[in-house]
């Protein structure tokens, strides 16, 4: 069974997903960071594949992408690092990457490698639903990869229903009109949007991301969804950490409790 399905079958509340950029802050940090995220008590690990032009990301993640690339991270290198990680990590793992590096690697080869190393799902922010359905859906399914779509406050009800129909993992709710890391805190307007989507009774679980940074925002987001995703705030935490593994565990504990 896909680990994402297994997770949501067993847990529907306060699911915490942590995003980090592979190869950041140091090239060989990928696996140690994943181990610490698991030890800290998060539920999903989202690995960002660094890209030179991440148009949906704010300055913090742009910066982590740039540093990771300078460190020598690449798709090939990432799959080398991930070989055998399932001996240590049992959480669901999702790869988040922009489309161009994936199609240069080869979509089928990419899906095959994902399955080989034990990846459960994908988030490709610049792969629109129609292109996914037309070109890649059957490949994703063949290799047992769950695809995740984003929705935003601007997404129409009709389109949210279509997205819900074409997903069987979770829906990534972008919390506001924003790129990653742009805002902190949750406004009344955002809560109205969370409620609106909550009341749609979608078949897929929903995780709220963008602007989630601490226990308070995590708790608020979880009230209106199945949990939340933390990215930029986590990247900031590990950027200058001297005691990475402990700092990660402490941070996640502080968010959950």
């Amino acid at each position: 069974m896909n680990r994402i399905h297994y997770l949501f079958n067993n847990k529907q509340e306060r699911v915490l997903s942590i995003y980090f950029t592979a190869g950041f802050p140091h090239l060989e940090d990928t696996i140690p960071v994943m181990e610490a995220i698991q030890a800290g008590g998060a539920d999903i690990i989202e690995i960002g594949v660094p890209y030179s032009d991440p148009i949906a990301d704010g300055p913090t993640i742009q910066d982590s992408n740039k540093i990771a690339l300078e460190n020598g991270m690449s798709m090939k290198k990432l799959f080398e690092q991930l070989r055998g990680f399932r001996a240590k990590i049992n959480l669901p793992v999702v790869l988040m990457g922009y489309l161009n590096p994936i199609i240069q690697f080869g979509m089928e080869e990419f899906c095959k490698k994902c399955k080989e190393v034990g990846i459960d799902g994908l988030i490709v922010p610049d792969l629109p639903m129609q292109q996914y359905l037309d070109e890649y859906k059957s490949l994703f399914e063949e290799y047992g990869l769950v695809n995740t779509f984003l929705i935003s406050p601007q997404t129409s009800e009709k389109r949210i229903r279509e997205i819900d129909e074409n997903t069987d993992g979770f829906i990534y709710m972008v919390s506001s009109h924003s790129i990653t890391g742009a805002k902190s805190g949750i406004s009344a307007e955002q809560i109205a949007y969370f409620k609106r989507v909550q009341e749609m009774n979608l078949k897929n679980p929903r995780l709220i991301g963008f602007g989630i940074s601490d226990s308070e925002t995590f708790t608020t987001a979880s009230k209106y969804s199945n949990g939340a995703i933390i990215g930029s705030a986590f990247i900031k935490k590990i950027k200058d950490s001297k005691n990475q593994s402990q700092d990660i565990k402490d941070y996640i504990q502080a968010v959950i409790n």
Partner: protein
Amino acid sequence: MIRVDEKGFYGRFGGAYIPEMLHPNVEELKENYEAIIATPEFQQEFRMLLRDYVGRPTPLYLAQRLSEKYGAKIYLKREDLCHTGAHKVNNTIGQIILAKKLGKKRVIAETGAGQHGVATATVCALMGMDCTVYMGELDIERQRPNVERMKILGAKVVAATSGSKTLKDATNEAMRQWINNPVDTHYIIGSVVGPHPYPEMVARFQSVISEEMKWQLKEKEGRENPDLVIACVGGGSNAAGAFYHYYNTPEVRLVAAEAAGLGISSGKSAATTVLGTPGILHGSKTILMQTEDGQVVEPHSISAGLDYPGIGPVHAHLFDIGRAEFVAVEDEDAMKAGIELSRLEGIIPAIESAHAIHALNMIEYQKDDVIVINLSGRGDKDLETYIKWGGY
């Protein structure tokens, strides 16, 4: 037939590879732009402004001394005489009227050398719209006069500080800001790049160039079709405009001059069709310069307007099917061509357009061929570069 299909593709290039957060904006544009620009009100305002404000039609000038030197009948399409100094304003006029009809209150734009930024700031001043232009931090240093022009016109200029701090990063930043302001803001893209419907929409606004060429040639030569059309290509908006009404007239040769920078194999080049491979850049499938790993490579050209790692999807298609011939012109040759045109015709061209002039040395043609070179912009903005280069 060369034309965009329903999904926004030219052959295998194009489409709209954008984050879901941009979907409503792009969809709104896609659903409305054709209907809006087909209305008599739009056409009337667009045509009136092109005539009375931009100064169209721009002359089609028979360049006698240039013709003598190259042994062909060479016409220059004088886009350099447009208000603001280049063809860019044809597109911004179209998009600002569209933005108004869509009920938008703010405009954002990206710019490299600043020509599109100035053209956008100009039409925003004209229409009383709030205007923010994103520009690479490096370009802000290199193109100070255009930065000040935009500010005089009332626009806000914001530095893009990520990546290489040039045009591609300014484009990324403008897209991010559009994500952050989806409801009241229109994004005026300056070239035939970006997600569908931008490439086709921008090409249609620029197609006035070849529309005029046809009747002007008819008047002067007794035929609408030249033997060759030559234009420079960065993203490719002036080339798309000059080629547009000849796409499906195969007897007209289309020649695109790319920037080879310091040379194709120097590592400092912007010759996309030579060095690039298919992939995705700024929301469309096209040909771009990238590493084996799919990371976008930093281009180089002495002309900021050609300093872009991709080309518009329509040009990728024209290249793919062999409809257009591509030549790659080095910095040094373009500068010399700029001086040559200045001395032969008394016209100092933009360095972008000088690439198209030099293409005459790189292609075969017959002695009595009628050649139209799209002189996309004037050289005023490039004086600093001419002075620094010094070879005159």
